């Protein structure tokens, strides 16, 4: 359907004997667009903040330092990082095969529903049994939701952007039903289920307590990077994304790879939902998906579908997100501004790619 550059474009100056400096130059060429994009986005945001009659310096300070000033800020950032990195991988893995998974939030909600269902129905089980069940139920539920879209794509040729998005809206209604009706907690004051059994909750480590899901997400991110970059399956994935026809000619079962990539994305998104239930909320809440889907897509695109870069970009976005609410409290700048900044970083990054390519062509 479309091609997405999986690897950064090769750079000139890779002659033998100059390996050291060539690597330095290529890093510079790779890093320069990011630098320009972030700076340009912040300049635009600064102008907007100033036009709204607030102090840009105060707003930027709140956005950039909240995560690092206190241990609580860092904990909030890491807790935010978990769903972001998983959502970004859920988008990136299919993207590596040239497919767009816009269903991350539906898969998250199904994962959260599956996890909450097990956690509520089997609430009396002890931790060693219940916790794995809760997580596995969430992962599988997310995978099933993505598998529906994958099946429609392979069997009937239904565009995966559409099917995954439409399934999101189905999942909203499903969560509304579960949290507002089936297992509703009437005392909550909003649509939420009763809490899951204590055995299903992820333990916290350290002080202030950091839930174990952070390490689960880290392990998942590392494993993904290894599998995508060092295994046959990962190679086939990238081959399909780079040139689907060539991959098919060389014996890759492209439909299976693309469908598999979507399902794996769903598994990851389901895991993010299960961790939100088991580690953060302790129950299924309507609206718990926040804007994780949008952010996951932005992260995946900023990382240029590079699974190694995703965790780092996700951390940067988590810092911005945690800073956004602090900015709204302290500098009274609406938090929506941060979504604009993130979208602008993406657009400027893509623009500076084009400009850098032209510049490089002219120089060589």
């Amino acid at each position: 359907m479309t091609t997405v550059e999986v690897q950064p474009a090769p750079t000139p100056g890779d002659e033998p004997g100059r390996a050291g400096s060539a690597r330095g130059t290529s890093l510079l060429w790779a890093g320069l667009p990011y630098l320009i994009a972030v700076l340009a986005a912040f300049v635009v945001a600064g102008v907007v903040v100033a036009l709204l009659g607030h102090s840009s310096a105060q707003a930027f300070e709140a956005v950039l330092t909240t995560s690092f000033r206190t241990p609580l800020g860092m904990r909030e950032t890491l807790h935010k990082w978990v769903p972001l990195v998983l959502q970004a991988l859920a988008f990136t893995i299919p993207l590596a095969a040239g497919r767009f998974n816009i269903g991350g939030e539906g898969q998250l909600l199904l994962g959260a529903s599956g996890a909450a269902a097990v956690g509520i129905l089997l609430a009396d089980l002890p931790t060693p049994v219940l916790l794995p069940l809760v997580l596995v139920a969430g992962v599988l539920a997310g995978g099933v939701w993505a598998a529906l879209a994958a099946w429609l794509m392979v069997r009937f040729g239904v565009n995966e952007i559409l099917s995954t998005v439409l399934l999101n809206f189905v999942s909203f209604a499903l969560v509304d039903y579960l949290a507002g009706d089936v297992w509703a907690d009437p005392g909550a004051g909003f649509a939420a289920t009763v809490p899951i059994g204590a055995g299903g909750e992820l333990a916290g480590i350290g002080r202030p307590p950091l839930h174990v899901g952070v390490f689960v997400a880290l392990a998942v991110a590392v494993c993904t990077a290894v599998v995508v970059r060092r295994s046959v399956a990962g190679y086939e994935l990238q081959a399909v994304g780079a040139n689907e026809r060539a991959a098919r000619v060389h014996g890759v079962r492209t439909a299976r790879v693309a469908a598999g990539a979507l399902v794996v994305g769903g598994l990851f998104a389901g895991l993010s939902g299960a961790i939100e239930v088991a580690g953060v909320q302790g129950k299924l809440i309507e609206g718990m998906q926040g804007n994780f889907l949008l952010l996951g897509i932005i992260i995946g695109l900023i990382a240029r579908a590079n699974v190694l870069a995703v965790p780092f970009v996700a951390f940067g976005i988590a810092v911005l997100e945690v800073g956004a609410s602090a900015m709204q409290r302290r500098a009274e700048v609406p938090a929506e501004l941060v979504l604009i900044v993130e979208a602008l970083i993406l657009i400027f990054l893509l623009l500076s790619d084009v400009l850098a390519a032209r510049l490089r062509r002219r120089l060589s």
Partner: protein
Amino acid sequence: MSEVVTFLGLVVTAMVPFVLVAQGTMLSGRAGVFNVSQEGVMVLGAVIGFLVSYSVGSNLVGIAAAAAAGAVTGLVLAVTTTYGRMDQFVIGLALFFLCLGTAGLLYRVTIGVTLTPPRIPTLPDVSIPLLSDIPVLGPVLFEQDLMVYAAALLSVALWYYLYRTDAGMRLRSVGENPKSADSLGISVARTRIWTTTAGAALMAVGGAYLPMVYTGTYTEGIVAGRGWLAIALTFFGGWRPQYIVAGAAFFAGMDVLALRAQVQGIGIPFQFVSMLPFVATLVVMVFALRWVRVPAFLGRNYDRESRLSG
């Protein structure tokens, strides 16, 4: 009887945003640009249409302002993909985010958080003399607001332009085989830019229509997936103006049905009723795609110096 007339009248009203957004998608798609920012552009159109109508006091000015804002997003999409040859889906998604953020910010800055949101007058119904006296059809089709008539005229005009004029055929050739079009002296870039700009303007108008006809005020989530459904509608309508109108009746029917069932209660949990439009769309897509032909160059960028594209 009057029950049926009321229902059909509501369906016709609900068709308008679907028709406008899907025709906008179709128009740029016919030139090969697949816009996927509908949902965001509609939200932006709804906010700008509402805010401008509220401050100026005229819904028409609000609609015009929304169209202008939508046109800007379309222009960005067209220029970046035509000249920068950037991925259409990636830019479309980025614009989707940018529109959501901008819309949220604009509303927050001008209105803020209030218990009683400000209201604008909804669009008045205009009866067409004589025609509105026809039983059943009259009240359903000819006692509607101006945008209903505008959307109908637009659809007829698009059909005539695309299928009965030389210029329309040239436009379609750009989306089918830009290399041939280029070799015949048709400007691929210019065609793509004006269709994408005009198409996005239509999407924003489709968004602006929502607060002006349903609630009289802007609420978060007012678009509620209609932008994504409109993409499905465009496929369902085979990227042809006349079938898009027919398909819109189905989508709008689902919309109204889900709303009515929620209000009246029909014995099953209302959440399952609100799933209906989306599930039905998925099912319909499965069958629609068997007979639909999409523009051959849809979603791809044309590089006249490349030997591959053509």
